[in-house]
């Protein structure tokens, strides 16, 4: 956090990829997200930070309509991807999710082989013309997930037989295999050791060249290391949103300051 280099990190003035305006989310009577407005830039890593239960995951799930699967969940407001309202009735949420990929908080590999885990998305979207193509996609995705070396000899072993950290990287590989435009990552490194974390962070940095990445993290260092923009959530509201360097060195809101210095959390 005291690493001053983060100040020098350039933030591209990229175009807005996802724009959320006046977003509210209710779980039944619980008001989980309160009037949140955020512009997420293209080719940028945006970090969501905040204490547990403040609604980071909930807001993230709004961005690819995963909340649709929760019966009691109701989303209001305006969320646009490339200027198109993703909650428009004409939008097919399945198509949206192919464009906005997701890595979940808990690793959830399919109870199938490692190969099939990664190949599933490309298969259903018809991204591979033949077996060789698919093999290539799978290898590339596993390399980007920083897990290729560990699993290349047992691609047909069950994905559920991997360790927790390996499973999470497999899930990351699975998510990037479908070539999404936006990648939502909900605490992707919470189960990883420092080396794997570093690999995933490198991956995130690399993904930034082509995609927009949104990452939820409890590690302030990680947010500072990988992100260009940071949003601080507290009790369902967006308290502060800005360039990462500014948030960590010169927060405007005193709640942000308390959180990043460890006084609330």
């Amino acid at each position, binding site marked *: 956090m005291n690493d001053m280099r983060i100040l020098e990190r350039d933030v591209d003035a990229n175009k807005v990829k996802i724009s959320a305006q006046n977003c509210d989310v209710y779980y039944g009577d619980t008001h989980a997200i309160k009037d949140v407005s955020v512009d997420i830039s293209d080719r940028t890593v945006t970090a969501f930070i905040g204490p547990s239960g403040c609604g980071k995951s909930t807001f993230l799930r709004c961005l690819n309509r995963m909340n649709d*699967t929760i019966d009691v969940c109701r989303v209001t407001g305006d969320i646009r991807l490339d200027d198109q309202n993703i909650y428009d009735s004409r939008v097919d949420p*399945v198509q949206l*999710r192919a464009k906005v*990929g997701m890595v*979940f908080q808990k690793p*959830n590999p399919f109870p199938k082989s490692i190969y099939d885990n990664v190949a*599933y998305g490309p298969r259903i979207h018809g991204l591979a013309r033949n077996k060789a193509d698919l093999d290539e996609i799978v290898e590339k995705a596993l390399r980007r997930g920083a897990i290729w070396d560990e699993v290349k000899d047992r691609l047909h072993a069950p994905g559920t037989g991997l360790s927790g950290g390996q499973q999470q990287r497999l899930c990351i590989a699975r998510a990037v295999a479908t070539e999404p435009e936006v990648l939502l990552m909900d605490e992707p490194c919470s189960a990883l050791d420092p080396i794997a974390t570093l690999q995933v962070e490198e991956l995130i940095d690399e993904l930034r060249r082509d995609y927009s990445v949104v990452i939820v993290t409890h590690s302030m260092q990680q947010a500072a290391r990988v992100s260009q923009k940071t949003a601080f959530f507290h009790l369902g509201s967006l308290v502060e949103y800005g360039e990462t360097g500014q948030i960590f060195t010169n927060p405007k809101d005193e709640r942000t300051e308390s959180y990043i210095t460890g006084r609330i959390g």
Partner: protein
Amino acid sequence: MTDASANTATGLYATDAHIRKRNAAEKRFRLYGLAAVCVGILALIVLMTSILGNGVSAFRQTYVTLNIELLEAKLDKNGNRNIDDIKKVSTFGYAPLIQAGVEAAMAENGIEIEGLTGKQAGGIISKEAAAQLRNFVIANPDAIGTTVEFDVLANAQIDGYFKGRVDRADAELLKTVSPVQLDLSDALLEAGVLRTKFNTAFITAPDASDNRPEAAGLGVAILGSFYMMIVVLVLALPIGVAASIYLEEFAPKNRWTDLIEVNISNLAAVPSIVFGILGLAIFINFAGLPQSAPIVGGLVLTLMTLPTIIIATRAALKAVPPSIRDAALGVGASKMQAVFHHVLPLAAPGILTGTIIGLAQALGETAPLLLIGMVAFVREYPAGPPEGFFDPASALPVQVYNWTQRADAALVERASGAIIVLLVFLLIMNVAAIILRRRFERRW
């Protein structure tokens, strides 16, 4: 040192009254549990020994090997082998031939029994034998005039004598068998003319009337039960699974789906006889389907089995972790793809188990079948599928009921035998369920 010894008093080795009481309670509970298991096992053992003790003998049957002369004078008076004339000779016409056959066997082996009339000698043979002979002659008219060796059934009382069901004291009292006949049977057994062997006819033959219980078999009942199971499987499995998938994965959770859920649970608790009344009213009286037909039985049992399958399938679907669905949706699978590619394979073992348990329940169900007329006395095998589904047939549990109703010791023995057959089928189904479940689970 004194400190240390004081410590041990309150340390890990010491037990106070509270702990002793807790330990005693745990020990007591374990004993209760063990006792409960023992009572269950004891009940099972008593049941099995009584069924096996009564029923195993049904799988053996006493046969007599006779050389019977098919006299032309009796069977084909005109001597022109006209099949229509031959058919005119009823089974009564064959009885004297059988009696002659027994007498011939006695003469051949030098058996002489005091006070045995010729009629009594012929009487040790089942009435079924005459029908057996007649069918043979109609099929082979050229055999008339020759002597043919037949394996014929012994009378049920003679059979019972060798199985210990009838003894000499009974024979003194009974009108259907006399001690001299038992003497004859003993002599024939010694001569090797009379034998007890495995009773394949019990599995394959159709039911028989009261005056020839030795010929009664389960053929029609097994076939009827088999047809009904096919109907149930073909209808209940797809309908049940489709309904469960819809309710569990797609239907909105609202008052209507709650109502449906409650109704399905209630349906599972409805007494089976009610389904019989329903079947009688709808399938027979309204839709005009034939009585006693496996199709109607199958439809009624389908109605009964559906709730079981739906409840089991929904439980299996619920047990699939939601994170799997999230994972599939997260990579852009549609809801249907998520269900069919990921959820259903994981739920398959549970669905299979539920289905087979439902089928096993249906196989053992009696009450609704009585109402739709499956208790009728059926001697004709139903035709092959699909017409056979509309032919009258019996069913295994109904056959058991039927035989126990007919107050003949020989049939009661057969009822126990039929129970064994039923249990074997249930066992096979349960083993199949276990094997299938293992098979599917190995695919993680």
